[in-house]
Each structure stands twice: as C-alpha cells, then as structure tokens.
C-alpha cells in the first residue's frame, strides 16, 4: 500500500517533485522573511536602547510601535 502511495502508479516522480518543489520554496521564503523581520526588529530595538534616556522616553511615549517592538523583542531574548 505504501509502495503504491509512493509510486503513484508510475507518476510518483512527477507528483512528488511538484509537491516538494512547492513546499521547499514556501519554507525557504518563510524563513528568509522571518529572518529579515527579526533582523530589523533587533536593529530597531538596539537603536532605541542606544538613544539618550531623554530621547528614548519621548520616543516610547510618542510611538506605540516602538514600545511594541521593544517589548516583543525583549520577550524573545
């Protein structure tokens, strides 16, 4: 039965190739996108931390996005 499933009655090579190429490209794009997102989050959080205390306070008060990134980033480390 498993043999039949893998061979797909002689079309196994084509069917499995089509499904694996689709799956592999989707997984690669997902990881690349996630890596870029994390990189930008990390750099953004680092830049906020490097600001003087006064500037940081004003950024955090004025930008909800900055505070969200900083809090989500500190959760992951």
């Amino acid at each position, binding site marked *: 039965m498993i043999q039949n499933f893998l061979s*797909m009655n002689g079309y196994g090579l084509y069917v499995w190739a089509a499904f694996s190429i689709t799956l592999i490209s989707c997984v690669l794009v997902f990881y690349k996108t996630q890596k870029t997102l994390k990189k930008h989050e990390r750099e953004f959080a680092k*830049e*906020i931390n490097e600001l003087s205390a006064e500037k940081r306070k004003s950024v955090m008060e004025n930008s*909800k996005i900055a505070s*969200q990134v900083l809090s989500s980033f500190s959760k992951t480390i």
Partner: protein
Amino acid sequence: MFSLLSPSNIFYWIGKLITFINSIFFILLIVALSFALIFSPPDYLQGDSVRIMYVHVPSAWIGLASFTCIALLSIANFIFKTKNLIIITKSIAPLGLMFTCLAIITGSLWGQPTWGTWWAWDARLTSMVILALFYIGYIVAHKFILPDEKANKISSIIVIVGLINIPIIKFSVDWWNTLHQPASIKLIGTNTIHSSMLTPLLLMFFVMLLYCALIFLMKYKTEIIRMKKKNLKRL
C-alpha cells in the same frame, strides 16, 4: 473608527494575525495535503498525475491575482499618492513571482507525463512566462532605481502595462488552439470538475492564500519597522 486604522493599531493587529495564522496553518496544511495526496481519486485518463493540479492551479491563480492586485493598487497610488499602497504592492510582488514560477515549473512537471513534453511555446505557457518577466521587471525597478520616487513611477508603469497580459493569459486557451486545457472552474456557469477533486483543490488554494497572508503580513511589518527606523535617525 479612524483610530482603528492608525499605524500603531494596524501594527498591533498584524502581530496578532501572524500569531493566529501560525497557530492554525500547520493543521490546515496537513488536512489539505491528505485530501490532495490520499483521499482524492485518480483521474480516469491521467491517473495519479492529476494530483499535480492541486499545487499547479492554486499557484497560477495566486500569481494572476497578485499581479492584478499590484496593478490596481498602483493605479490607485497614481490617484491618491499614498505611501502605504507602495508598501503593500512591494510586499505582494515577491510572493506573486514565486507562485508564477511555481505554476510554470509544476505545469512543466505535469506536461511531461500528460503531453509528452516538458515545454511548448503555446499561448498559455508563453503568456505565463511574460507575466513572470513583468514581475521581475517590477522587483528589479524597485531594487536598483534611485531615488525611490523614480523607482515607484517606473515600477508602476511596468505593472500597469503588464495588466494587459492578464486577460490574455485568462482567455489564451479560448482564443488560440493550445495544448493547455480550457478552464474547468468558472465563476459564471457550471463547473466541469467533480466535487471529489474540487474539495482538495479549494482546500489547497485556501492554505496557499493563508501562507500568502502570513508572508505578506511579515513583509509589511518589516517595512513599517524600516520606516520607523528611518524616522528614528532623523531625531
């Protein structure tokens, strides 16, 4: 009402949506793959090679839909000049290119056992390659042309010109004699596909759409952070 659409609220909801899609995606993928590879019957003529349809057709649909979306948003951008629209189109384009290429590759893998050839320069196949070239043109314009305003203008012109290709792709199988079969699923009129094959097809399409939404949201979030980073430097 308008406070819901503020950037910080959108950013908050993007985060929530990404977590939600991540949590249900894997289960849905397994269900869709089980239907596509196990529960759906083989075709009476094409045998099990018909299963390639479950990745080929949704990929082609997404490739076409993404391009139409980018072109319409680019037209809207010419009228309303909103930076947000450019960010959205830039986030959709790589996904559209990937799915167009996947439709071409999986189509080629389906063509070999069915038609006896990997490739034929017929109307549907050629117009899909042209679509991929338009996508490449759009992405390259954004990557290499400076300043940004000029890149936006040129890339918008590329996609708006490319929009002519969309009806050509859609109707190529009706207008010319092609190796490619005509559409079995119609928005208007009766479908010529049995429900045992339509169910896995729609399931796979839904899963791929969810995947696109996930990648799009992640890219969109990245662009927002990139913009905020630029603003931070101005302080």
